[in-house]
C-alpha cells in the first residue's frame, strides 16, 4: 500500500513538472510574436450625440424604450477613452502576415449595427446577421471594392462577405432605417479596435519598427512609429482632440 502512495506522489510530481514545462514552452512561443497594446484618449468633451427616434420601426423602438440610443459619431468611453478607433500598421509589415481565419460578425439588432465599427483583414470573412423582426437593407458604399446593396429579411440566413482590397472606413448603411450606420475598415496585417475604455491591442506582431495608424470616423487618422522589441509588448497611446 505504501508503495501505492509513492507511485501516486511520483506520478503527480511528474505531472507537475510536465505542466511546468508545457507552460514555460507556451510562454517561450508567445515571446516570439508579441503584441502592441495601447489606448486611445479623447482630449476634450465629446460633441453632443443626438438621440435617435425609432418610432418609425416600433419593434426596434421597443428594444430601446428604457435608454434611447444616440448617434455614434464620437463615442467617449470611461476615463477619457475614445471608442471605435481602428489601429493598424501602415509601414513595416513583411507582407506575408497570415489572414485571420476567424470570421468577424456584424449583427443588426434593435435597428443598430453591433459593432458600429469593425476591422478585418483583406479576404477575411464577415458574417452579417439580422436579429430584428424587420427587414434591413445593407448598402456597402465601398469604392476600392465592389459596392453592393441587398436586403436581408428577418430570419434570413447570415450574409457571408469578404473584401479583398484594403479600404479604410467603408460606410455601411441601411436605407430603410436611415439612422443605421456602420464602418468597415479593411487592412492587411494585425489590427485592433479600441473598446469602450479606449484600449486596444494588435496581436501577433513580429519584432521590428512599425508605423501605426489610428483611424476614427469623425476625427480622421493619426500615425506614430513604434518599435517592438523581442521579449516585451510595446505600448502606444493616441490622443484625438475633440473638435
Amino acid at each position: 500500500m505504501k508503495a501505492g502512495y509513492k507511485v501516486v506522489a511520483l506520478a503527480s510530481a511528474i505531472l507537475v513538472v510536465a505542466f511546468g514545462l508545457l507552460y514555460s514552452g507556451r510562454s517561450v512561443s508567445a515571446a516570439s510574436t508579441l503584441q502592441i497594446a495601447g489606448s486611445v484618449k479623447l482630449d476634450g468633451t465629446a460633441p453632443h450625440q443626438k438621440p435617435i427616434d425609432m418610432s418609425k420601426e416600433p419593434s426596434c423602438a421597443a428594444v430601446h424604450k428604457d435608454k434611447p440610443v444616440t448617434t455614434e459619431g464620437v463615442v467617449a468611453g470611461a476615463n477619457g477613452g475614445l471608442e471605435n478607433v481602428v489601429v493598424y500598421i501602415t509601414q513595416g509589415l513583411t507582407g506575408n502576415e497570415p489572414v485571420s481565419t476567424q470570421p468577424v460578425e456584424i449583427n443588426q439588432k434593435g435597428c443598430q449595427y453591433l459593432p458600429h465599427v469593425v476591422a478585418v483583414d483583406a479576404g477575411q470573412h464577415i458574417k452579417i446577421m439580422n436579429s430584428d423582426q424587420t427587414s434591413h437593407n445593407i448598402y456597402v458604399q465601398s469604392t476600392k471594392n465592389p459596392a453592393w446593396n441587398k436586403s436581408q429579411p428577418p430570419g434570413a440566413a447570415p450574409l457571408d462577405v469578404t473584401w479583398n482590397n484594403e479600404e479604410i472606413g467603408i460606410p455601411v448603411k441601411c436605407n430603410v432605417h436611415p439612422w443605421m450606420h456602420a464602418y468597415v475598415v479593411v487592412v492587411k496585417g494585425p489590427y485592433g479596435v479600441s473598446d469602450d475604455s479606449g484600449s486596444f491591442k494588435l496581436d501577433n506582431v513580429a519584432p521590428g519598427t512599425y508605423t501605426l495608424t489610428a483611424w476614427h470616423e469623425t476625427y480622421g487618422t493619426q500615425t506614430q512609429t513604434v518599435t517592438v522589441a523581442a521579449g516585451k509588448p510595446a505600448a502606444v497611446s493616441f490622443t484625438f482632440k475633440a473638435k
Partner: protein
Amino acid sequence: MPGKVFAVVVAIITLVIAYCVIAHVWWMPVDVSVHGPKIDHQIEETLFGAGILFIAGQLVLASFAFLYGDSKGARKMKAFPGGAKSLIVFACVVVGVEILVLSFVGSKAWASVYFTPPDPDSLRVDVQAGQFAFYFRYPGPDGKFGPLHPELINETTQNYFGLDPEHDADAKDDIVTAGLAIPVNKPVLLTLHSKDMGHSFDVRELRIQQDFVPGIVIPIHFTANQTGKFEIVCTQLCGLGHYNMKAYLEVMSQADYDNWLKQQAAMQ
C-alpha cells in the same frame, strides 16, 4: 344552356359584389379630418351612381344571354327595336348626367381641399421625405424655419434637412422629429420637401394623399378633429424600402402637444 349558366353566374357575381359594398365588408377607416366627409360623401355617391350602372349593365347582359340562346331557327330573329339611336341617346344622357353630377359635386369636394387658402395662423410643419423615412420640422419658439442647405444633409449626424445652426439664427431652435404630432382642431399647413425620390404623403384617416416631388415644395393643409394615432405611409414607389416608409401622426390635445414639443426640443 350555356347562356342560362352564364346568366346565373353573372347574376350571382353581381349580387355578391353588391352585397360586399352595401354591407361594408371592406370599408374606409374612420374619418378624422374636417374636409374628409366631403370626400367620403363623394365616394359614396359614386358608389351609388356607378353601382346602379354596374348592376344594370351586368343584369342586362345576363338576361339577354339567358333569353336569346340559339333556337335553331325556331325563333325568328329580331333587331333591337330601339336601334342604335336610343342606345347613343341613353349613353349620352344617363352617363352625361352622372358625369355632370359627379364633376359638379366632386369639384366642390376637390376645391374644398385644394382651393381654400390655408388658415393664416395655422401650425406650419416642414416635412422632409427621403429613402425611406419621413422627418418633420417645427419652427421652434421664433416661429421661423432656418434655410435648407442640401449639401449639409447628413444622416450620420441626423441632419435630415440640411440645417446649419452655427450660421443660421433661424435654424438654431428648429425642432426636427421623426413623428408628426399636431393639436386637435388646429389648422395645419404642411410643406412637403423630398430630398431624393418621388414620395407620397398618405394618411387614410385624413383622406389626404399628396406626392412629394423632388425640386418643388408642395403645401397641403388640413384640420384634424379627432385625437388618435394614425399611420403616414408612402404611396409613391421610391425604391427597395418603399413598403416600409412610414411615420406616425399623433393628434393630441393642445396641452399634450405642448409637452410633446418640449420633450422633442430637449432631445435636439
